């Protein structure tokens, strides 16, 4: 059940969004085709990094998997790094699937170097959302509470990334949205896909993404506990 739900969140939801956002009459107001792809990637990244990662860590912490690993001669840092590598692998697969579906069913093809940039930005985005997941799992001990918090955060993290290119909800929402973790990622993904030229705003989004990653990672590592009690 849990596995099928996480599979849906990781792969099906981004693909559904990729197709569904092109169906409405007003969907163009949110952004173009590249926006649809970057939205799909952002949803996948939040699912894998923030929700999936934090839940998996909390569950393993609750059941004692980490403690079992910590009594082996494996250095402690390798326990966490191995988890990050798995998540990055999942992000890579998700990004490739979204780009392949975009090419086959949405009709969006990119020059080869833009595919590379897009995947690289997706990996940078995964660092942002993994660090948010790490912060959540660092601050919340209980797996049940974390489950609820992760699901609650899912909505604003995705929602905020929707309105960075439109002032339909006002300029304040647009500004907040643009500089939110999801908004910065959207900006970078659009640039990676060649939709927008490199500019000061892109540098800002890049620095902001690094900043988010560092701040949330520090919080997540500083307050992380290997046991939930």
């Amino acid at each position, binding site marked *: 059940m849990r596995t099928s739900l996480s599979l849906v969140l990781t792969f099906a939801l981004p693909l559904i969004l990729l197709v569904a956002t092109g169906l409405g009459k007003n969907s163009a107001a949110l952004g173009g085709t590249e926006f649809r792809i970057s939205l799909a990637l952002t949803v996948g990244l939040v699912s894998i990094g923030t929700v999936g990662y934090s839940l998996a860590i909390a569950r393993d912490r609750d059941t004692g998997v980490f403690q079992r*690993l910590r009594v082996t001669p494996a250095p402690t840092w390798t326990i966490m790094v191995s988890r990050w590598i798995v998540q990055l692998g999942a992000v890579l697969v998700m990004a490739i699937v979204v780009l392949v579906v975009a090419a086959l069913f949405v009709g969006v093809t990119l020059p080869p170097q833009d595919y590379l940039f897009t995947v690289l930005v997706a990996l940078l985005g995964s660092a942002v959302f993994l660090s948010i997941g790490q912060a959540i799992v660092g601050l919340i001990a209980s797996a049940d509470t974390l489950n609820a918090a992760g699901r609650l955060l899912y909505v604003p993290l995705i929602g905020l990334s929707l309105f960075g290119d439109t002032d339909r909800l006002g300029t304040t929402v647009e500004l907040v949205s643009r500089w939110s973790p999801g908004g910065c990622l959207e900006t970078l993904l659009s640039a990676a896909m060649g939709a927008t030229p490199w500019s000061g705003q892109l540098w800002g989004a890049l620095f902001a993404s690094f900043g988010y990653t560092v701040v949330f990672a520090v919080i997540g590592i500083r307050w992380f506990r290997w046991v939930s009690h």
Partner: protein
Amino acid sequence: MIPALRVSGLRVAYGSIVAVDSIDLEVREGEIYGLLGPNGAGKTSALSAIEGLLRPAAGDIVIGDVDARAHPLQAKAQLGVQLQTTSFHSSLTLVEIVRLYAGLYGVTLTSAQIRELLGQINLQKEASKRFRELSGGQQQRFSLLIATIHDPALVLLDEPTAGLDPQARRQLWDRIERFRKEGRSILLTTHSMEEAQAVCDRVAIMDHGKILTVGTPAALIAAHRDDPQVRQAAHGPVTLEDVFIALTGRELRD
């Protein structure tokens, strides 16, 4: 002869609460050593410090000839550990878990060897199952297999028989006895005084973070046989449990 484990002046504190208060203990080669105490006595904290899960506030821990505080990874490589509650990655089968943990200890096993190991604990048919799909007794057997996959000289068992039915408990004790015959040393905690009396070469009774007494079960019984509190606790011949109750009190612990 170098002891399998030497702990001196070990102190573990959680903020202002002292869980382990400057204890000394020594586990000799080929010995089963029982650490007994009521809930909250500090047994698991002491064990956790030895296992490297907790950083002690003070004290020395030497495993074989390795200073565990100075060289924690080297010390962990010499230890076999079964925790009070253990779980393994939920997505892995037993075979995959064995392969993973063998790899972490630098042990290379072929598929045939893994099957043979699982066969030794009657889990060959369960080889492709997940850990959570096993019964309590099967989980305990499997955890012990993982704890000893690298053939450690010292095995630490935290309440290994908790929650097991008599058959599973008997099987586990047989296995622990086999470890002793193979020359391994075992440090365990248990709430079962009967088992400790029957199986342990020496026991230490611990309470409020301190070790109250150490000795063979027979020596402890002989030493405390005539204590008024022991006489009061005993219903017939004095047992280790009577000595334990007399030393640690009758009040319930959380």
